């Protein structure tokens, strides 16, 4: 990106709501200057199923954000989620060509290209290639291995890929507003970047973003993303279970979930009941609190178990010493951190936005959009850094994150 002022839009097309943040990036610092939100329609489990409805909602949120910012968005960083996203790990190694075993840029480029070159099934497209740290003769190298001495250079990439049509649908929703999608960022990476600190990522941390339709997670090891994933289960499934179990409409079930739902069972009195509305109006009735807690807790436990299962061997309490950080709208369910701690066997806590984030954007629902903005800017900065040679604004962005 150029050094002139850019107005960047971070767009998260979620299952329950669409969030747009407008960032003013001056080349040195990024300021959030506008926000727009709109209830989502035409989106199920993070995928666009009704183009027109989803477009209307997204464009409405974009308009609102532009009005709030008083500026026109120039480019968009778009969050990507959905059950169609999958990942795999591929690694490659090369022998250092130089006779003095000094690793040069050519060796690095070759091993990186090899590690990223795995062929994808038809109709699949790469969304992210997340590089893991280099290894020189089996020794971990946190930074670049250039000018180090070694015989064998290894690197691995966690490649996230998705279905081409689903990706195109999301992009075309934004293009319908005549905006360019500059960067497609995994929702888990965006949210994880916002709620974890560099120290936590270095020690190993699992960030889980529980949304309405999907649950995105990213496991950090050695300071970098190690594994990502998407589980097509979210808060709406808790609502759905309550609706079926207690014979309620979706709206009533959502209301009960928000008021009395818990991720762990806390009530001891089996006879304790709660009112649906609490206003004694016709149709208002009572439900056993224990039943509500049992349903939401069981579903939450199950959801976290699925995440743990998808992580497989990548996750262990030894490699994830910083624990689990939870975020997303559904992470506001009471007791979710305690449940996560029990499921994963490591400490868990709710993620919080950095202190410099303004009060009205500190809700977990904004973490993905915030992270999208900062992750996108830092990624763009890294891409343009070699050309600039100075890395001035890259340093600035890193300084921003360093303060987290």
């Amino acid at each position: 990106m150029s050094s002139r002022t850019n107005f960047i839009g971070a767009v998260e097309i979620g299952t329950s709501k669409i969030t747009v943040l407008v960032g003013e990036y001056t080349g040195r610092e990024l300021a959030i200057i506008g926000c727009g939100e709109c209830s989502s329609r035409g989106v199920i489990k993070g995928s666009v199923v009704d183009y027109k409805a989803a477009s209307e909602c997204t464009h409405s949120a974009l308009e609102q954000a532009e009005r709030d910012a008083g500026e026109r968005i120039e480019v968009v960083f778009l969050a990507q989620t959905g059950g169609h996203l999958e990942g795999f790990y591929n690694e490659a190694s090369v022998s250092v060509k130089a006779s003095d075993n000094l690793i040069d840029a050519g060796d690095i480029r070759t091993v990186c290209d090899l590690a990223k070159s795995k062929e994808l099934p038809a109709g699949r497209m790469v969304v992210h290639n997340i590089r893991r740290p280099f290894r020189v003769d089996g020794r971990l190298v946190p930074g670049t291995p250039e000018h180090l001495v070694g015989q064998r250079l290894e690197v691995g990439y966690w490649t996230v890929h998705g279905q081409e049509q689903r990706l195109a649908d999301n992009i075309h929703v934004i293009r319908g507003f005549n905006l360019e999608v500059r960067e497609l960022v995994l929702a888990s990476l965006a949210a994880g970047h916002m709620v974890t600190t560099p120290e936590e990522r270095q020690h190993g941390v699992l960030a889980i973003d529980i949304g309405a339709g999907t649950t995105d997670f990213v496991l950090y090891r050695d300071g970098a993303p190690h594994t990502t994933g998407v589980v097509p289960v979210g808060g709406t499934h808790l609502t759905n279970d309550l609706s079926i179990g207690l014979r309620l409409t979706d709206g009533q079930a959502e209301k009960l979930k928000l008021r009395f739902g818990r991720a762990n069972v806390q009530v001891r009195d089996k006879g304790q009941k709660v009112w649906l509305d609490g206003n004694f109006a016709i149709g208002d009735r009572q439900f056993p609190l224990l039943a509500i807690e049992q349903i939401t807790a069981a579903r939450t436990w199950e959801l976290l178990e699925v995440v743990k299962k998808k992580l497989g061997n990548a996750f262990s309490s030894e490699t994830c010493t910083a624990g689990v950080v939870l975020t997303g709208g559904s992470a506001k369910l009471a007791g979710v951190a305690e449940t996560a701690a029990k499921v994963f066997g490591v400490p868990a806590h709710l993620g919080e936005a950095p202190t410099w984030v303004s009060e009205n954007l500190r809700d977990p629902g904004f973490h993905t959009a915030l992270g999208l903005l900062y992750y996108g800017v830092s990624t763009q900065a890294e891409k343009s850094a070699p050309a600039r040679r100075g890395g001035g604004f890259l340093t600035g962005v890193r300084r921003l994150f360093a303060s987290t």
Partner: protein
Amino acid sequence: MSVPLVNIPPTRSWRDIPQPVKPRTMSREGRWRLLTATLRVAGVVAVLGALGWAAWTVSEVVREDARKLPAVARAEPVRHLELITNGVLDQDWLRQALALPAKASLMELDLAQLRSRLLAHGQVNSATIERKFPDTLVAQLSERSPVVRVMTQSGAGESKAWLVARDGVVFDGVGFDPAMVATLPWLDGVTLRRRGDGFAPVAEIEAAANLLAKARWEAEHLYRTWMVVSLARLQSDREIEVRTKEGTLVVFTADGDYFMQLARLSSAWEKLAAAPTPPARIDLSLGREVSVAFAPAAGQPPAVAIAPRVPADRAFSFFSNPQPNPKRELQN
């Protein structure tokens, strides 16, 4: 930097998804954004084009005469006066009329004021003045031509001859050939009114001017003999009276065809050539007939030839003298 030797198949990225979409698939706001973006680009292109054209024009000017622009900046004093005219005025007159301040630069001159100075002279019909960098002032004039002369007398008793143009403007002729001026008839039967340093234009001079022009070109032998043209009876009787050198008074009608009247006069003049004395009056205002009156001898009634008799008193009712008339008073 070494080149990788491995052949790596390209993997398809989300960036391979084509982003352009057709405007009809856009929302209303999207189309509006597209339109404004297009207009903005068009505006930028137009501005750049205009700037480019301006730069090219300036470069052309500089290339043609690189001294021009610096000369403007220096504002050199006026060194040359250039006169373009269709008349007889010359450089000296122009220099005197403009009365430019010493060492005045082109940019310091008030062209409107200079033009009004030129137009103050009645001989100048129209004038344009322009700067020609670096140091030349160009005056382009259109001059009036005289058709008659008129003699005036000031309160101090000084007589002065003026010229009268076709449009009635009375002016002090400058630069005209005296021989040419001497051929012009005198004007009589009009009242001159003061206006500033000069006189107000003479009304209804055009009828006489047409007659004089016709006579000059069609009957030059007659025109040469005309001494005085009087408009005294133009307004009342639509008659123009011409006094010849021989003392004959020729009466023309302003409503008739001058060419025919001149033809009759010429014919009558030929027939009267054998007469012992020139006729006192020839009246051409009677249509196809020409009335000729001779001055009566002492004790005899006036004789009339060719035409019906003309009353004697009419034959001598008008007298014009090309010499200044001391009785005429100028109305200020």
